[in-house]
């Protein structure tokens, strides 16, 4: 498991400067992605997972700004690169698939135009060659009649098809790292499965690493090797997918898993996490989850819990994490 890291984020801080105040969307996030692995980045809406992904490419929309930290990609800090150098990395080294398949393609240009544009931006090829390559990519993402479909405009295609094209566009320059921001959220369940399967296969075939941003525990369970759970701009638990599902330690992770419907348990009611994600302009002191946590102590409101390795390869940011391990050992599972 201990393969080389392709991306290492240290203490990344991204704030949004709005009229209402400074939104601390990502506040000291550290994570690493190893070569060839799929890292799941899980959390509720507004937990900062998408902003983390955008920060890696340095395309955080205004009024967002990366305040500090390091993003080390293949040994180089991306935050020290010039805009021109970043443009060479975006799409070529690190590709991005956005949430909405419907809106991630420009409605006024044909698919051929949009694909060849990206291909020609990063590779020195003629228009005809770029088109051939685009048609090839259509075959790779399993679209029927690629020679015809490539001339379509986005509005002529279905959501699943558009997401396949978004994937094709992301893969067009054979990136080493793929950032997939909720790639299946807006698709039908059956299409979701197809797209996930496709991404998984392509990742293997091309030997990429991937960060899969999602709020859907079901999606990460099937695809991710390791999971980072994010809450209110911070990472609260890191472990392999197996560990996260079998032995979650952070109360937030547990709550998140309990909120997933499970037919086998035959419960009538789903457990919900009380309250909403906090306002990130003035987040709760100490552990950001403490106002919603069933296990909170007085101490939780004052101390920021560090991310501590509880077992090998299992990091938890909770001061009571050790206790929870013991309870689980005694069989007091959730």
């Amino acid at each position, binding site marked *: 498991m201990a393969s080389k890291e392709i991306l290492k984020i240290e203490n990344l801080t991204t704030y949004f400067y709005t009229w209402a105040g400074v939104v601390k969307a990502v506040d000291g996030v550290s994570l690493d992605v190893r070569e060839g692995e799929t890292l799941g980045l899980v959390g509720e809406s507004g937990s900062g997972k998408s902003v983390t992904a*955008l920060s890696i490419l340095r395309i955080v929309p205004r009024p967002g700004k990366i305040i500090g930290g390091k993003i080390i990609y293949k040994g180089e800090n991306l935050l020290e690169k010039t805009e021109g150098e970043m443009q060479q990395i975006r799409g070529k080294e690190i590709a991005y698939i956005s949430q909405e398949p419907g809106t991630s393609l420009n*409605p006024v240009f044909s698919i051929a135009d949009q694909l060849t544009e990206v291909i020609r931006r990063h590779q020195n090829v003629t228009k005809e060659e770029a088109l051939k390559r685009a048609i090839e990519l259509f075959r790779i993402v399993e679209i029927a009649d690629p020679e015809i479909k490539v*001339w379509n405009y986005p509005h002529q295609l279905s959501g699943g098809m558009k997401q396949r094209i978004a994937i094709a566009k992301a893969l067009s320059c054979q990136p080493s790292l793929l950032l997939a921001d909720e790639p299946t959220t807006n698709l039908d369940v059956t299409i979701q499965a197809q797209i996930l399967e496709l991404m998984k296969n392509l990742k293997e075939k091309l030997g990429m690493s991937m960060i899969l941003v999602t709020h859907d525990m079901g999606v990460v369970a099937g695809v991710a090797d390791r999971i980072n759970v994010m809450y209110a701009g911070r990472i609260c638990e890191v472990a392999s997918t197996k560990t996260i599902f079998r032995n979650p330690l952070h109360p937030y992770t547990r709550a998140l898993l309990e909120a997933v419907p499970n037919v086998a348990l035959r419960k009538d009611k789903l457990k919900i996490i009380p309250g909403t994600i906090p306002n990130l302009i003035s987040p709760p002191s100490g552990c950001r989850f403490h106002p919603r946590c069933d296990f909170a102590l007085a101490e939780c409101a004052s101390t920021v819990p560090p991310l501590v390795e509880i077992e090998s390869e299992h990091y938890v940011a909770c001061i009571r994490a050790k206790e929870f391990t013991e309870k689980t050992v005694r069989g007091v599972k959730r």
Partner: protein
Amino acid sequence: MPTKREGFKAIRFKVHNIAKNSMTKYVLRRLLYLIPIFFGILIIVFVATRMAGDPVKLMTGLNPRITFEARERLTQYYGLDQPLYYQFLKFVWEMLQGNLGNSYAIRGGTAVTTLVGNYAWETFKLQLAALFFSLVIAIPIGILSARKQYSKLDMTVTTTSLVGTCIPIFYMGIVAILIFSYFLGWFPYGAAHSLDPTRYPFGSYLLDELWHMFLPVAALTFAELAPVVLLVRSSMLEVLRQDYILAARASGLSERTVIYKHALRNALIPVVTYVGLYFGGMLAGAPITEKVFNWPGVGRLYVEAISKLDFPVITGITVFVTLMVLVANLITDIAYAYIDPRIRIE
């Protein structure tokens, strides 16, 4: 069905052909719609003018010695004694032959076609120049303002535009004449040409024309500028928030490509609508501007014709303006379909 071996150009040509055919159909259908609209407008204006009053009475009202018989003869001469439907059908029949009648009031019955022809060109010249300059200035300013939202530049632009929208053109025009013609003496007070050829700057007719155009074009440009700036700005802001802009940035395209290719094309869609509607209307002339600058345009002619109940001129200009508006709308629709493929294929 194109095969794998077919090159970029061959496939593109095929697709282009299909688009062109559907485009032709689209244009033809739009043209068919124009016919009932055109005649509808014509009927309304024709009936409304004849309800407005009696031009013969207006013409002879100041003559105390006019006899009843003389009035009757005039009414008969102008054909106003005939039933309304007969007058209308006669008008349509003559119109289809390219004859819009003769003016009651202007220089012993000048042909309306001649009048409209002369005056329309002056209006067209003025408005086209103003539209051109306002777009050329407004679009880059709007884009810049949107890209730097809430910056000092953006604040200045939006405030100035709001003030600009609020200042009426007759005020602007009069102030401009006061400053640049009266105090500084740089430009003429009005009219389209110098009456005396010896006053042409450097003896050039063209320069004289441009010299006379400057102030009215500047005033109109300023008036049209502000709303376009605000429209481009808001439309651009909307587009810049879209996912495909983020996606375009994420695929490593340069900022220039992202803004001027991906964002601008989308942001221009509402601007095209605006300009299309505006363009149609402005061919009717800007009566106020033309009055202020004493410009021999359609707008001024229209207002004068109405005040004199000059029926042929009123209907004649109406025919012209209606046609122009309809054509402008058609051009807008075509431009629309060109920019936005979602409209092209239905």
